[in-house]
């Protein structure tokens, strides 16, 4: 984005932080606020926010004269009329020659498979229309999904159709052939026969696939001196090493959040990232749901440096520098009676009354409490968490351990170091890189980029011809997970067979195919490899065919979850010396909430998905606290030079309320150079300053202002609160005393000029439970996939033209430095008396007999009056031709049941009317009414926390009716009397009275 353009759009106003802090402290500021700009409420911000879209959103410009306007109007009228004169083009129908048994044209099929992240499987159901996978949903039978799917899993279907995927074998920069590669590889392997493969290294990502591990094992038998190494930049090394420290062996930790009354997160984001997070989020939300004012709920304490979704859900959040979490853990361990050395004193904003109160609460709930350590925390913190859980008697109750889900658990940072050392010493002749992207994401000081070209024969199997492929002799296109056979384990060990939905679009090879080639079984179908492996494993199964069919159908292999394992805490934890006190500013590396380690960089859905707390799109930032920003004289969007570990990188600053002071968070996964057309050049590569020594947390960061500015596309300032209480929050105590607090100020039967409409049949509505929503963004991607919503790009987001039908607003409450954070998903309210309907001159938005606020694209002429009149700002306008009408591979992705919108058309949430109609038709054919829960909109389906519930509000027994009956139920902007069908359940906090009292005192 050029500066001048930004200037035209009105630069974001500058904010005087010290004045703000004073205002919030003295209670002059509003209770809830969405951004620093809003809190400051500068005249510039008011002007910026007054218009629905910032200046410059109108392409015609401000200096349009009357004559010009009339000309343009006449032309559009003429063109609009002319488009009505087209004849339907001649079409062809191409039936099958031999129709596959199960395919019924017009009816989707669903296949159970799994997608993996960090090797760990999430079970999914993939919707397939005539052989085209179009949508990924969670598999309700899978323990790690329970029917929900995260943004990554859902967006992987876009990755399948990505036109930038590698489509051919590449040899030294030129198109190669599979046959030539086979012969070269054979020669290279032959040369290694003598030495037993001493010069061979296979580098993979984390592998939980038993059949792939067996293939690797077979290869290592043939070449006993060869080495198999695993590396991912978002590694779970600290989790593994922490287990080793605590128990003397690698184990896998499984939490039973539904049994925990008090949970402490030590810099962990267990509600939105990591193995099992979907299940944990669901169990957590269930424990938070209160039936009425007498209900009980769990309590979450979070200690964290970087604001994360888990901290936003916490009843008490303690801002602590990431490097001080160990000290906190040690102090807590001592409080619960463990003999460990005390860490250095905690310097940052730390309230001394917090710890004893927390310890008392945990001890009071022995056996029903849970301590979870974050994946970016050092091994010692994990060991401490195990020890504390042990001391509280939580093992076997709220937490248990099993054997590792990884087939070959290893320290991946040591592995990549070993590889680099091997190459440096000239010991690596054949390097086979299966997946991963070490040239981009290996620790910067290893110099992998320089080392890779020195390997004699290097091969890369990858989805994209990326940074690593460019440095290898051979690049082989990889088959996408939806194109290949395989298997993987879930967070608890449950096996899912990965089955293909489609033949490889670009002739890609799966890891199984590749290893078959290495094992001299070239061309052996990977289906046979996987099936034969499991047939051998399940030789006791009397009818393997039936077992196999059932496993494929269900998406889970029965009885493969690992049983709990008996472990004892190793003595000697107390002798572990505490880490030294951090000196200077710390730097914390985190996985990016939407890019992960950068593998999703070319995925437009994930690039444009606003990050849960910053609401940033298409970019990454160096995040720091208001206080630190003030001290360094920085403000959001300032470019700074980050100097760490002898390297430096330029990054934009983002001032984040709630961030720990003297700490800077950076996120991996951006700054890709060979990601593809979507991902190239977005953001900066934080991995460039990430050394081998400190994978996650380091101290001694130097920050220098460069004087440049960096425009960031955040979606948070496009609309403001204007002092209204859109999000309603109370504590459990307040709720008990005043069950109707959420409905305060609501008129019981407000008068309306509109005549009441009676709904005889169905009447659709939705309830959104703010108490459950973690703000993860899964619903946003689900909606995008289901409804063919276009990606618009950073430039358009900057002018407020993002197209998402559901947005998740993030509100802050309280002080600038340490606010409470709340999420609120906002979709079309389907108002009973909808303001949009009355202003449409062409009746393109009307009410249905079932209460839906319908949007008719082919009637819409694009006046945007409806959007102007919508108080909730949920209507989205196609300012340009955002939908891709040209790229052939993307046609396959589209949901055939939803129109692809063109330029000049308004669109918005329809409650997934295509799903409503499909279910209604089936019910009608069976001569019955639609059952409750039969219609599930995409957002509800994907939600791990079950925050959204859709149904028939005419049926008093439906789930949604019962939720709307609750005293926590309220409508947004009730005073406007639009009578929304989407209503909200107020958020409840369950603070520890000891801490809360001390805070207010």
């Amino acid at each position, binding site marked *: 984005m050029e500066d001048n353009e930004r200037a035209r759009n009105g630069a974001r106003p500058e904010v005087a932080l010290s004045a703000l802090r004073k205002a919030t402290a003295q209670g002059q500021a509003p209770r809830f606020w969405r951004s620093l700009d809003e809190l400051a409420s500068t005249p510039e911000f008011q002007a910026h926010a007054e218009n629905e879209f910032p200046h410059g959103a109108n392409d015609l410009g401000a200096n349009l004269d009357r004559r010009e306007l009339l000309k343009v109007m006449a032309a559009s009228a003429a063109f609009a009329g002319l488009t009505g004169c087209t*004849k*339907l083009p*001649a*079409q*062809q*129908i*191409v*039936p*099958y*020659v*031999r*129709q596959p048994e199960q395919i*019924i*044209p*017009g*009816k989707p099929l669903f296949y159970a498979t799994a997608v993996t992240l960090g090797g760990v499987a999430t079970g999914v159901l993939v919707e397939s229309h005539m052989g085209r996978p179009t949508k990924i949903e969670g598999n309700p039978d899978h323990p790690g999904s329970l029917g929900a799917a995260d943004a990554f899993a859902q967006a992987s279907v876009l990755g399948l159709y990505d036109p930038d995927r590698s489509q051919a074998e590449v040899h030294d920069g030129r198109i190669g052939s599979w046959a030539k590669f086979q012969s070269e590889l054979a020669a290279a392997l032959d040369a290694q026969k003598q030495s037993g493969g001493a010069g061979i290294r296979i580098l993979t990502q984390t592998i939980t696939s038993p059949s792939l591990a067996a293939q690797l094992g077979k290869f290592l038998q043939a070449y006993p001196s060869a080495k198999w190494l695993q590396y991912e930049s978002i590694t779970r090394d600290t989790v593994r090493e922490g287990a080793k420290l605590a128990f003397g062996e690698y184990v896998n930790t499984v939490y039973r959040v539904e049994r925990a009354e008090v949970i402490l997160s030590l810099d962990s984001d267990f509600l939105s990232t990591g193995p099992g997070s979907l299940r944990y989020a669901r169990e957590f939300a269930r424990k938070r749901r209160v039936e009425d004012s007498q209900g009980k709920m769990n309590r979450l304490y979070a200690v964290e440096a970087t604001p994360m979704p888990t901290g936003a859900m916490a009843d008490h959040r303690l801002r602590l520098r990431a490097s001080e979490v160990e000290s906190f853990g040690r102090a807590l361990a001592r409080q619960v009676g463990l003999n460990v050395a005390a860490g250095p004193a905690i310097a940052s904003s730390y309230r001394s009354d917090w710890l004893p109160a927390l310890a008392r609460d945990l001890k009071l709930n022995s056996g029903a409490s849970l301590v979870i350590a974050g994946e970016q925390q050092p091994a010692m913190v994990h060991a401490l968490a195990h020890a504390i859980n042990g001391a509280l008697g939580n093992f076997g109750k709220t937490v248990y351990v099993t054997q590792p889900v990884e087939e070959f658990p290893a320290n991946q940072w040591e592995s990549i170091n070993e590889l680099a050392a091997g190459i440096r010493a000239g010991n690596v002749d054949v390097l086979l890189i299966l997946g991963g992207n070490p040239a981009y994401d290996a620790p910067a000081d290893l110099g992998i980029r320089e080392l890779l070209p020195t390997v004699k024969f290097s091969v890369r199997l990858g989805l994209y011809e990326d940074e690593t492929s460019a440095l290898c002799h051979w690049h082989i296109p990889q088959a996408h997970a939806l194109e290949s056979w395989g298997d993987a384990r879930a967070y608890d060990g449950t096996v899912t067979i990965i089955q293909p939905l489609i033949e490889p679009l670009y002739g890609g090879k799966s890891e199984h195919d590749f290893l078959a080639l290495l094992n001299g079984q070239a061309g052996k179908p990977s289906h046979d490899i996987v099936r034969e492996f499991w047939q051998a494993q399940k030789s006791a199964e009397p009818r393997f065919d039936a077992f196999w069919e059932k496993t494929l159908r269900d998406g889970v292999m029965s009885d493969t979850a690992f049983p709990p394992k008996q472990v004892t805490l190793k003595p000697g934890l107390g002798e572990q010396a505490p880490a030294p006190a951090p000196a200077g500013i710390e730097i914390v590396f985190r996985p990016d909430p939407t890019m992960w380690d950068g593998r999703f960089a070319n995925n437009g859905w994930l690039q444009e998905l606003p990050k849960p707390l910053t609401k940033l799109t298409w970019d990454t930032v160096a995040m720091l606290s208001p206080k630190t920003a003030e001290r360094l004289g920085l403000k959001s969007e300032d470019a700074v030079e980050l100097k760490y570990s002898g390297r430096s990188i330029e990054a934009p600053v983002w001032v984040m309320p709630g961030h720990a002071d003297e700490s800077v968070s950076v996120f991996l996964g951006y700054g890709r150079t060979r990601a593809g057309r979507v991902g190239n050049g977005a953001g900066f590569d934080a991995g460039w300053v990430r050394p081998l020594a400190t994978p996650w947390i380091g101290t001694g960061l130097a920050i220098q202002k460069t004087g440049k500015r960096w425009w960031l596309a955040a979606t948070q300032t496009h609309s403001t609160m204007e002092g209204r209480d859109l999000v309603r929050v109370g504590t459990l105590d307040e709720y008990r005393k005043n069950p109707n607090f959420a409905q305060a100020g609501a008129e019981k039967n407000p008068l309306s000029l509109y005549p009441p409409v009676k709904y005889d049949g169905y009447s659709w509505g939705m309830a959104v439970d703010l108490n459950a929503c973690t703000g993860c963004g899964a619903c946003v991607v689900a909606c995008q996939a289901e409804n063919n919503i276009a990606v618009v790009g950073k430039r358009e987001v900057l002018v407020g033209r993002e197209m998402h039908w559901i947005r998740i607003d993030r509100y802050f409450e309280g002080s600038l430095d340490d606010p409470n954070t709340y999420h609120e998903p906002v979709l079309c309210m389907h108002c009973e008396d909808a303001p949009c309907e009355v202003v449409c001159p062409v009746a393109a938005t*009307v009410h*249905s*007999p*079932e209460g*839906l606020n*319908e949007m*008719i*694209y*082919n*009637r819409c002429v694009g006046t945007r009056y409806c959007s102007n009149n919508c108080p909730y700002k949920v209507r989205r306008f196609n300012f340009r031709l955002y939908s891709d009408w040209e790229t052939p591979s993307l046609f396959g992705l589209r949901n055939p*049941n*939803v*129109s692809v919108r063109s330029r000049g058309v308004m669109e918005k949430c*329809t409650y997934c*009317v*295509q799903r409503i*109609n499909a279910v209604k*038709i089936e019910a*009608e*054919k069976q*001569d019955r009414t639609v059952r409750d829960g039969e219609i599930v909109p995409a957002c509800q389906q994907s939600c791990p926390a079950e925050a959204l519930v859709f149904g028939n509000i005419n049926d008093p027994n439906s789930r949604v009716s019962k939720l709307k009956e609750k005293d926590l139920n309220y409508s947004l902007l009730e005073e406007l009397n639009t009578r929304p069908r989407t209503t909200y359940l107020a958020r409840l906090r369950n603070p520890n009275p000891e801490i809360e009292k001390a805070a207010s005192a």
Partner: protein
Amino acid sequence: MAQIFHRSTNTIARVSIYGTLLLVLLLGYAVDVVNKTAYVTEVNIARPQPVPFSHKHHVGELGLDCRYCHTSVEESSSAGMPPTQTCMACHSQIWAQAEMLEPVRASYRDSKPIAWTRVNALPDFVYFNHSIHIAKGVGCTTCHGPVAQMNITWRGETLYMRWCLDCHNAPEQYLRPRSEVFKPFYEPPRNQLALGQRLVKEYKVQRLTNCTACHR
């Protein structure tokens, strides 16, 4: 002062004002007429097909059921087009050497599908579902015309939205008992209105005229 304009100017002004109005109306009428011609609607125009398949022969004379080929009409939005295999079920035995059927045999032999020309087409923003119409007693020939008399298939009705709405507003004029839906020579009885009204009740037929019933 002398008049600037001659008296006749009044007439000219009137004629041009009313004339223009009339012209616009006429133009509108003309557009409407053109839109109803077969040139635009393609109704009653037989479409050339790669194989001259005759519904008249197969349905009218041999008495094949619609569902023998259009198998998914009761289950799905799409009625389904028969795979080559369906043709070959018979034509590997009868007329097995006929020259006319060579494209069919070639398709089966080479596993290359036959590309038929679509006769009944709806715009992409219309979501029509066959199965629910069948279930509610809408006969095949109500929309597809006298298929059993078509040597080469043509479009039986305009498939315009107003034509859809004719029935959606007054289904009792068109409905048949479910047992008669697939009858190619079905003639509505004289008491259609009474029958239709009974069927509307019995089949719980709704008069869906809201937009998202078809557009989404």
